[in-house]
């Protein structure tokens, strides 16, 4: 791990009413590090991911990105979010814009890039995710896997320092999962810092540097993928992994 982590999460708690989704989470993500966040549904992994770009506000604790604490809602937060890419389970492409426009929209209106330059870069990004021929298609005309690849390109167009993936393949048909994971693996190889909430244990094992296992709102175990999958330390992690194998 590098000495100054890009993301520092300290003693973070998040309550939804009386339900505590996060109960004191500490997590560092180093520059260029790929961290997989795994655990059962409801363990708080998506909530943690969403807290990092403040789509959820934390109840207590602190989160800093690049040494800067997350600002209140407003211009400063918008600027910071622009540097943190996010990919959602439900893709959330803008249905009234074409694939190309989905990608170039934020660069044009947030980073104030000239339209021809933004469009040119959007085409490069589409090529990178293997969708050059879909530039003029609307999201409704794309398969789930294609939509998610456009969503990844859309996030990359903002030149983020960090990419958050919130269960990016959970809404996809099985045959489309690998096309999305391929794009993500490629991104990981290029040195992007990534936090990936996932149920794809193969991806966590092969593309990530570290696996964090969450249970009941806490990170109960974190280790290198090989260590975590082959010799889990905690009973809860063993239990979780055994269930994966048996179903």
């Amino acid at each position, binding site marked *: 791990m590098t000495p100054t982590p890009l993301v520092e999460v300290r003693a973070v708690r998040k309550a939804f009413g009386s339900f505590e989704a996060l109960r004191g989470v500490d997590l560092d993500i180093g520059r260029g590090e790929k961290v997989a966040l795994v655990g059962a549904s409801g363990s708080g992994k998506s909530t943690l991911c969403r807290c990092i770009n403040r789509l959820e506000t934390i109840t207590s604790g602190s989160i800093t990105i690049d040494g800067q604490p997350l600002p209140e809602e407003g211009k400063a937060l918008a600027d910071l979010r622009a540097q943190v890419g*996010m990919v959602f389970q439900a893709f959330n492409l803008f249905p009234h814009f074409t694939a190309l426009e989905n990608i170039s929209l934020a660069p044009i209106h947030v980073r104030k890039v000239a339209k021809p330059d933004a469009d040119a870069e959007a085409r490069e990004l589409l090529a990178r995710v293997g969708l050059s021929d879909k530039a003029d298609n609307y999201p*409704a005309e794309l398969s789930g896997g294609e939509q998610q690849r456009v969503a990844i390109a*859309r996030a990359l167009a903002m030149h983020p320092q960090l990419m958050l993936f919130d269960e990016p393949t959970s809404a996809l048909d099985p045959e489309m999962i690998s096309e999305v994971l391929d794009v993500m693996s490629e991104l990981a190889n290029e040195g992007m810092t990534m936090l990936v909430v996932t149920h794809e244990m193969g991806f966590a094992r092969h593309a990530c540097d570290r696996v964090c296992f969450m249970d009941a709102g806490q990170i109960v175990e974190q280790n290198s993928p090989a260590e975590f999958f082959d010799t889990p330390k905690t009973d809860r992690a063993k239990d979780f992994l055994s269930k994966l194998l048996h179903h």
Partner: protein
Amino acid sequence: MDQIWQMLGENSSFLLNGVLTTVGLTILGFGGALVIGTIVAVFRVSPITPLRVVGTAYVEFFRNVPLLTLLILIVFGLPDIGLLFPLFWCGVLGLVLAGSAFICETVRSGINTISVGQSEAARALGMSFGTQLRLIILPQAFRTMVQPLVNNFIGILIGSSLASAVGVSDITNVTQQLNIRYAEAVVLFLLSGAVYLVFALGAGGVGSWLERLVSRSRIGSAR
């Protein structure tokens, strides 16, 4: 029967002006109400509490006061504070104020039909609240609002007849005047009623056409 035709013939330009006044009141009233209503709706969904309070107060006031009361207050009240507008524009103002309160609620419910994921994706890309609304939320919301907006339009069209009571020479006012002169209430009000009916049906037709256009487009329902 001949008498009636003669009456209509002699007053054709008077009647036509009445129709045009009704059309003007409705189009300006609806256009203004659409703009103001959208702005108030944005107030009501904004993260800034004072704006939400202002928006809510606006809607609760103008939605719950009879249009006729509002028109009378505008025509007889505003001159008291030194604001003297031509009667026609008083009518437009009343329709804009009342109409915008209803359109605000149409727009607000339209905004609420857009999944929260859309605004999350926009925020995650660093878009401000205003950019989000302008580029992502409102363009999608308006697509779901075609029929409710037709209802609002018809409400303003029919409401415009109340402007006759404060002396605006719309079609209702004109037929009233002719009725006083010729005592042909049934024929004259059938005529003015038919004018509203034709325009309302026309608005409904345009609405259905717009809705078909929207549903047939390639944008579809990708949510």
